[in-house]
């Protein structure tokens, strides 16, 4: 198969191929997001003795599409007292990086749509940090007290969990000796999946990524019973859809990152690579929904101390352990 990692310079053909690739990844992500939301509602429903969406289309499969359409055609409301330019900018700022991080995820062995850049891991972490600005600006620009508190909480939470998240994946980078996600998968393909030697790192990653995604039990920024909807309380219509989309694209991206770093990416016996990848991504997403169904929400001050006092020392310990291990072996 054609692989652009070999293409050394930009030609018209390469450019066109990239454009087509981007569009395909974009559509893939949208499709995954649509059915992630559907799966969320179904799994939540089943675990709660309910049926979940079942009215629109067979088994309610069209429900999310209808929801998205509804959001898109709704009236676009910008509050009078809001900071207009920032209010408009915030969803874009939150949304664009969420799609950009997908460019480094190796979906399959023949990573057709994957940018084979040598700092893939760093690229992901760096871009996902930009989203925080969008969330914070959204909360600020709405000129709403709940949104402000939600935005501030969100910024504080995502920043403090970015650190243990970054630290926890360093162990993997040390194991593979590279930041290139393709190399990391290849190293797991030949040896153990990283979840075995990096189990501590995996646990830290799991917790930190849940917080990073603002999902239960770390869903404080949009804590419904306290802040009603958090930073996107004043958003409606397609701007609100953008925020929701960001959230679920990140869920997909984080699941893909988790699969890539710890679960061996596309590698696995018998089945084709893309299927293995899909299974692993779904396992991560299912776990998130499962947690969402069980856990109450953690309290804001506990959240911070948990990140700085528990997760950060643990992840540092993990790095040291891995480094020592690598030196000796």
């Amino acid at each position, binding site marked *: 198969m054609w692989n652009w990692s070999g293409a050394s310079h930009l030609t018209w053909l390469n450019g066109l191929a990239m454009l087509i690739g981007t569009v395909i990844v974009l559509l893939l992500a949208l499709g995954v997001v649509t059915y992630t939301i559907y799966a969320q509602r179904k799994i939540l429903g089943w675990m*709660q003795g309910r049926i979940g969406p079942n009215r629109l289309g067979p088994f309610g499969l069209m429900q999310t599409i209808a929801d998205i359409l509804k959001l898109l055609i709704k009236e676009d409301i910008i509050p009078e007292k809001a900071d207009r330019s920032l209010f408009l900018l915030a969803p874009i700022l939150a949304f664009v990086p969420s799609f950009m991080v997908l460019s480094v995820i190796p979906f399959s062995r023949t990573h057709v749509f994957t940018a084979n850049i040598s700092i893939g891991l760093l690229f992901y972490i760096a871009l996902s940090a930009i989203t925080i600005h969008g969330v914070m600006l959204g909360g600020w620009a709405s000129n709403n007290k709940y949104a402000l508190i939600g935005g501030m909480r969100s910024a504080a939470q995502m920043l403090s969990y970015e650190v243990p998240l970054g630290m926890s994946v360093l162990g993997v980078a040390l194991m593979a000796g590279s930041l290139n996600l393709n190399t990391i998968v290849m190293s797991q393909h030949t040896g153990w999946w990283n979840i075995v030697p990096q189990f501590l790192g995996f646990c830290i990653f799991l917790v930190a990524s849940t917080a990073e995604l603002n999902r239960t039990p770390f869903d404080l920024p949009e804590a419904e*019973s306290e802040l009603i909807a958090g930073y996107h309380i004043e958003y409606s219509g397609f701007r609100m859809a953008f925020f929701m989309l960001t959230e679920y694209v990140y869920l997909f991206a984080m699941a893909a990152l988790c699969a890539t770093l710890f679960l061996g990416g596309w590698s696995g016996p018998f089945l084709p690579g893309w299927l293995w990848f899909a299974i692993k991504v779904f396992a991560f997403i299912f776990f998130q929904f499962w947690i969402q169904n069980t856990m109450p929400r953690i309290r*804001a001050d506990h959240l911070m101390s948990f990140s700085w006092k528990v997760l950060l020392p643990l992840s540092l310990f993990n790095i040291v352990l891995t480094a020592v291990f690598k030196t000796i072996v």
Partner: protein
Amino acid sequence: MALTDEAQSIRTEEMILNVGPQHPSTHGVFRLVVKISGETIIEAEPVIGYLHRGTEKLAEDLQYTQIIPYTDRLDYVSAMINNYALCHTVERALDLEIPERAEYLRIITMELQRVASHLLAVGSYLLDLGAMSPFLYVFQERERIVQMFNELCGARLTYNYMRVGGVKWDAPPGWIDQVRDFIPFMRKKLKMYDDLITGNEIFLSRVRGIGVFNTETALAYGLSGINLRSTGFDWDLRKKKPYSIYNRFDFEVPLGKNGDCFDRYILHMQEMEQSLRIVEQAVEQFPSSGPVLGKVPKMVRVPAGEYYSGIEGTRGELGFYIVSEGKDKPYRMKIRKPSFVNLQLLPELLKGQSMANLIAILGAVDIVLGEVDA
């Protein structure tokens, strides 16, 4: 030291935040005006009255039987107990003899109602704390109780079941067996809730040591029910001033130790177990036949005077105070609403707490706005 000085010199502004009346966890239409500095609450003021229907005033124009359906709508999740509270006061005033079978039916329905109400309290408390599933689970169990009540008296929420001198309907055939089957089922479910909720570290960290008050404060504010018992003060009207036939049953009054939100949660769970014990014994002793409505004059006329009697409602002491001029309608009726009294402590409890604790404390005080506003 320098750091704290700097922190003090930063100019901060207090902010007034309206929680409610349209807010997902105010348990009805309730507004809380909180003054916050950062995330710390400086002052909180409950604003009530959004659900006010003037039940007490309406009662002055209604015969005693006609008031009963209005009591259904006070604390709408424990209508049976409200029904009983009114009927009990009138019966005491008239010195009526209640048939055995009616007494047992009253005990069974009231204690099942207590289970249903506590289930909802626990479920909605967990929903306030951000756990979604328990709320939906409790509705499944509550549905069985509600269905049994529906079979008994034809309504799912506003039962209008008790009458002065007895109850309206006798138990339909097979109903008592349904209740008997329900008890082990419910015990199994309580075990499940224990597994799901009580052990969860996140839940514990949110409720342990939060919203603490001691017995003196509780008594000074006139609290009753679980809010009072969570401080370790043994006060349950079913034991202390036995009404109906509660003295025939063997049950315990669970008590808390610390007076925090966790104690109030766990007391709800333990009281459900005790209620099931009472129901179990009542079902065993249930008389096989007999009337369910005693000899009551066609027109209930309470002799002139003032009457009060309180019973142990789900949320505390629920009492009806009736001033009668000897007519078929009360001259004045005053309801001692436990939710209303318990709510008074809220501003005191919230002072100095963080915003995240607001919902945890409000939920644990366990109010029903239909009763607060009456």
